[in-house]
C-alpha cells in the first residue's frame, strides 16, 4: 500500500464530512452540486479500492489517531462493510448525477448550499456506520446521518408543507430508536468494559447469560428495527419518503434503511453470535412473524395507495420484510438472500424513485390521478419504471428474481410447515407486487391523456442516470458474480466465524 491508499479507510468518512461545511458556504446551484458529486465519486472510487484490497488481502484494520484498539477507535473494512460502502457510494453518486435539474426545481435556490451540505453529512453518517468497528462511534455516525436526514426531508416543504410534520415525526421516532441503541450499547459497555465490536464479541461468551445483556439485546434489536423500518415500526417511513424531495427519496430508499439492516446483521451475527442469537434469544420467533406480516400487509397497503411515491414507500417496507426474513431464517442461504436483496432492492428501488422523479419534473404531481396516459406522454421514463417494477416483482433476468430465488431456497431448507408455508406466502406476495405495479401501468398506458397535457420527456441529464440504474439492475440480474459472489462469501464468513 502506498501512503495515501493506507489512509483510505479514514478518507471515506472524513472527506465528505469536511466537504459539508464548505458546501454550506456557497450560494447558487452549480458549485455545491459539483462539489458534492465529485466528493461522492471519490468515496465511490475509494470504496472500490478498499474492496479490492479486502478481497486480495483480507480484512483491513485502521487505527484512528494511532491508538491501538480496543482503547482507540478502530475502522474495519471486511467483505460486508466493503460491500455496503460500495453500494452506498454508488447509489449516492448515481442519484447526484440525476439531481441537478430535479433539485433546482424542488428546493429554493438559497437553500441549495445547505441542502448539499446536509446531503454530504448524511453520506458521511452512512459510510461511517459501515466502516467503523466501534459500537459508540456507530452511534455518533447514526446521529449524523439521522439529523441530516431530518433536515433533508423537511426541505421537501417547498413542494408540500406536510414534509415538515413528516420530518418531525421521523425525528421523534428516529431519536427513540437511536436512544434505544445507545442504551443497549451502554449496558454492554457496563458488562464488558469495551466498545470495540470485535472486543465485545470476544468477551461475549463470558457474560451472555447476564440480565443486562438480555436487556441490551432487546434495546438494540428494537432500536435498529425502528431505524430500518421493520413492520410495525415503519410509521415514519411512508410520509418521509412521500414528501421528501425526489432525489432524497431515491437516495434514502437505497441506503438509509439498508444501513440499519447492516447494523442488525453486525450485532446478531458478529457481536451476539449465531448460536446465541438464534439458539438462546430465539430471535427467529420475533423477527420471522414481523417479516412475514410486513411483506404481506404492506404489499396490500401499497395496492390501495393513490400516490406513487407512497406506493413505493410501502413497497419498500414490504421488501424490508424479505430482507429481515432472510436473517430470521438463521441459515447461510437465508443470510445470503438478505445480503443479495439489500443490494438488489437498493438498485431497483432507487431507479424506480428516480423515474418517479422524472414524472414529477414534467407532470408536477405524483398522484395517480394526475398521471393518466403518462406512458404515452413520457414513453422513455415510464418504460424505465415498468422495467424497474418487473425487478420489484421478481421476474427472471431482474435482480428481484435472484433474491427471491435464494429466499425460497432458504425457506425450503428451513423445511417443515413453516418453510413450505413461507414459500407459498412469498409467491402470494409476488402476486401482490404484480398488482401494485400493475395499477401504475394501467394508469400510465390505459387511460386517456388529459386535455392540455404536454408530451414531453424529462431532460437527458435525468433520463440517463435513471436508465443507468435500470440497466444496472438488469446487469446484476443476469451477471451475478459481484452481488451473489460477495453475498455468498460474506454469509459463509458471518455464519462460520461468529
Amino acid at each position, binding site marked *: 500500500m502506498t501512503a495515501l491508499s493506507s489512509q483510505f479507510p479514514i478518507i471515506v468518512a472524513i472527506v465528505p464530512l469536511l466537504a459539508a461545511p464548505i458546501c454550506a458556504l456557497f450560494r447558487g446551484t452549480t458549485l455545491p452540486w459539483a462539489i458534492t458529486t465529485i466528493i461522492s465519486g471519490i468515496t465511490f472510487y475509494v470504496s472500490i479500492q478498499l474492496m479490492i484490497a479486502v478481497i486480495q488481502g483480507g480484512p483491513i484494520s485502521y487505527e484512528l489517531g494511532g491508538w491501538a484498539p480496543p482503547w482507540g477507535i478502530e475502522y474495519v473494512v471486511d467483505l460486508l462493510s466493503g460491500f455496503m460502502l460500495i453500494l452506498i457510494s454508488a447509489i449516492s453518486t448515481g442519484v447526484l448525477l440525476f439531481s441537478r435539474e430535479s433539485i433546482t426545481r424542488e428546493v429554493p435556490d438559497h437553500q441549495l448550499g445547505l441542502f448539499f451540505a446536509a446531503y454530504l453529512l448524511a453520506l458521511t453518517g452512512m459510510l461511517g456506520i459501515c466502516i467503523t468497528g466501534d459500537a459508540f462511534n456507530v452511534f455518533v455516525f447514526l446521529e449524523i446521518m439521522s439529523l441530516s436526514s431530518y433536515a433533508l426531508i423537511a426541505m421537501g416543504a417547498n413542494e408540500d408543507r406536510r414534509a415538515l410534520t413528516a420530518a418531525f415525526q421521523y425525528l421523534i421516532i428516529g431519536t427513540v430508536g437511536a436512544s434505544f441503541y445507545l442504551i443497549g450499547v451502554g449496558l454492554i459497555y457496563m458488562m464488558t468494559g469495551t466498545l470495540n465490536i470485535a472486543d465485545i464479541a470476544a468477551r461475549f461468551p463470558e457474560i451472555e447469560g447476564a440480565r443486562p445483556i*438480555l436487556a441490551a439485546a432487546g434495546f438494540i*434489536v428494537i432500536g435498529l428495527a425502528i431505524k430500518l423500518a421493520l413492520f410495525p415500526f415503519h410509521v415514519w417511513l411512508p410520509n418521509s419518503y412521500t414528501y421528501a424531495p425526489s432525489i432524497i427519496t431515491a437516495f434514502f430508499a437505497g441506503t438509509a434503511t439498508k444501513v440499519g439492516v447492516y447494523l442488525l446483521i453486525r450485532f446478531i451475527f458478529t457481536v451476539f453470535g449465531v448460536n446465541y442469537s438464534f439458539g438462546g434469544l430465539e430471535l427467529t420467533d420475533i423477527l420471522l412473524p414481523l417479516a412475514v406480516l410486513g411483506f404481506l400487509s404492506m404489499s396490500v397497503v401499497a395496492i390501495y395507495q393513490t400516490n406513487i411515491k407512497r406506493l413505493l414507500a410501502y413497497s419498500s417496507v414490504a421488501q424490508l420484510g424479505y430482507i429481515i426474513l432472510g436473517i430470521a431464517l438463521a441459515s447461510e442461504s437465508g443470510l445470503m438472500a438478505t445480503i443479495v436483496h439489500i443490494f438488489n432492492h437498493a438498485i431497483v428501488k432507487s431507479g424506480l424513485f428516480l423515474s418517479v422523479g422524472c414524472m414529477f419534473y414534467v407532470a408536477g404531481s405524483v398522484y395517480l390521478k394526475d398521471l393518466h396516459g403518462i406512458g404515452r406522454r413520457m414513453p422513455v421514463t415510464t418504460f424505465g419504471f415498468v422495467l424497474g417494477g418487473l425487478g420489484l416483482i421478481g421476474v*427472471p433476468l431482474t435482480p428481484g428474481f435472484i433474491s427471491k430465488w435464494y429466499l425460497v431456497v432458504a425457506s425450503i431448507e428451513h423445511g417443515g410447515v413453516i418453510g413450505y408455508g413461507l414459500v407459498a406466502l412469498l409467491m402470494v406476495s409476488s402476486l401482490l407486487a404484480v398488482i401494485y405495479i400493475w395499477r401504475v401501468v394501467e394508469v400510465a398506458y390505459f387511460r386517456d391523456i388529459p386535455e392540455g397535457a404536454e408530451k414531453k420527456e424529462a431532460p437527458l441529464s435525468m433520463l440517463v442516470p435513471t436508465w443507468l440504474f435500470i440497466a444496472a439492475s438488469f446487469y446484476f440480474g443476469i451477471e451475478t458474480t459481484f452481488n451473489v459472489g460477495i453475498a455468498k462469501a460474506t454469509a459463509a464468513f458471518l455464519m462460520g466465524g461468529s
Partner: protein
Amino acid sequence: MIEGLNPGFILIFGALLVPLTSGIVRSILLLTLPVLALVQIYTLGLGTWGHYDFLGLSIELTRIDPLARIFGTVFCLAAFMGMIYALHVKDTVQHFVALIYIGSAIGAVFAGDMITLFVFWELTAISSVFLIWASRTERAYKAGMRYLIIQVSSGVILLGGIILYYQETGSIAFNYIGLTGLASGLILVAFGIKSAFPFLHNWMQDAYPEATVTGTVILSAFTTKLAIYTLARAFPGTDILIPIGGAMTVFPIFYAVLENDLRRVLAYSLNNQLGYMVIGVGIGTELSINGTAAHAFAHIMYKSLLFMSMGAVLFRTGTIKASELGGLYKSMPVTMVFCIIGAVSIAGFPLTGGFVSKAMIQSAAADGGMIAIWLVMLFASAGVMDHSGIKVPFFTFFAHDSGIRVKEAPVNMLVAMGFAAFFCIGIGVFPDLLYQLLPYEPTYHPYTAGHVITSLQLLLFAVLAFALLMRYKVYPPELRSTNLDFDWFYRVPLKRLALAAGRLIATVWAWLLGIGRGIVAGIIEKTVNTHGDGKVMARTTASSTAVMIIVAALGFVVVFFYRFLQQPVPM
C-alpha cells in the same frame, strides 16, 4: 446465424425491428421471420446448444430432439399462416406482440432446462394478453385481465414446482418428471392450467373470443399446444391424465351445443380436441405419444382454419352470433369451402388431417385395452361432428338466409386459409410425410379397412343428416326447414339430454363459483377495510401512538429474552 441460437429468438429479435418498419417492408419482415426460424430448426439438426452456468444451475438454451422439432415445425408454419392472415392489419402493437408471443412459444419448445422454459412460459402469457386487449373494448380488457392473472399464476406455480424439484433432485433439466410428489404435482398443475384441464379451463372460452379477428387465430395455435408439448415431455404415461383428458373431450360438448357465439363454440371444441392429446399423453406408449404429436400438428392446421374462416366472417359481417348469421354461402363461397374443409378435418373424415392423427390415439387406447376411454373418445367424436363439423358451417353459411350480403374475405385471408386447407388435406392424403417427423419410429398405418370403416360408420349418420340438410336448403320454406333441420341434428332426446346436462353442469359450476367468489369478496373486503387508503394499516398514526407501540414491543421483547435467564447459563 449464431451457432445454436434458439429459433424462438429469431422471432423475438425480429419483433424488435417491427416498430422501425412499415408498409411492404414490414410485410416482408413478418413473413420472413417464421421461415427463418424454420430454416434454423433444420439447419441445426438434432442436439443441444447454449450451455451456461447461472446461479449454479446449468442452463441449456437450445435443445432440439424429434419431439420438440415437430412442435417447433408446426409452430413456425402456424406463425407463417397467422402472419399472412394478419397482413392487412396496420396495428404495430399487434404485430409486435404476436411475434414476441410466437417467438417465446417456439423458444419454450426448444428450451432444454426448466428455468429457460419458465422465462418463455411467462413471456407467452404477458405478450399474448396484448392480442386480447388489441380489441380495445371494455369486455376485452376485463377478459384479458382475467386471462393474464390466470396465466401468470400458472407461471408462479410452475416456478414453485421447479424450485422444489430442484431441491429434491438437484437438477433443472427439462426431461421426464412423472407425478411423484408435491414438486411434480405443482408442475403438473401449472401445465394443466395452460392446457385447460377441466375446472382450470375457463380462461380460454373467456378470453379467446374477445381477441381481435387475427388475435384469436394466433392465440389458438400456441399457448395450449405448448402446454401439451410440456405434458408430453414431462408426464408421458401418467395415469391421472387419462380420466382428465376423457373429461376434457366430453364436457365442452354440452357447452358448445348451447353456445351462440361461434368463436366461443370453437373455443369449446378446442378444449375438446386438447382432451384427445391429454389422453394420448396419459396412455404414454410410443404410438400414443406419436398420436399426440401428430394430432397437435393436424389440430393446429384445422383449428386455425376454422378460426380463420370464422374470423373472416366476423371481419366482413361484424357479428359472429349463430342466430344472426346464415346464408353466407352466396357471398363468401370460398370461405365456405375452406370452413367445410376445416370442419370435416376436425370431425376426422378419412383423407383429412384429423383422421390420421386421431386414429393413432384411439388405436393406442384400444391396444392398451382401455375400453372405457375408447368409448368416451368415440362419443366425443360424435359430439365434435355435431358442433364443429356441422353447427359452425351450417349456421354461418346455410340455415335461414339472414339477408347479409358482403364481399368475399380479403385475399390475404383466403391465402392463409388455403395454406391451412392444403395442410389439412395434404396430411390426410400423404400421412407418411407427417409421420416422418414424429418423435418415435412410425409403425402405424391409418388407412386399413378396419379404421376407415369404423370411422365412416361413426360419421355415417351425421353425413346423412348433412346431406338431407343440404336438400332442405335448396327447397325452402325456410321456417320449416330450420325446425326440421334442428330436430334432425340434435334429435329430440339427445338435445334434451344435452340441454339438461348442460344446465346441471352450469348450475353446479355457478354454485361453486358463487361460493368461491363470496370467499374472495370477503377477503378483499376485509383487506380493504383494514389496508385501504386511510384505513388502520395505511394510516399515519400519531407519533405518541407509534412510540407507545415501540415501548410495548420493547417490553415484550425484553420479557421474551428474559426467559433465557431461567435456563442454566453456560459460564
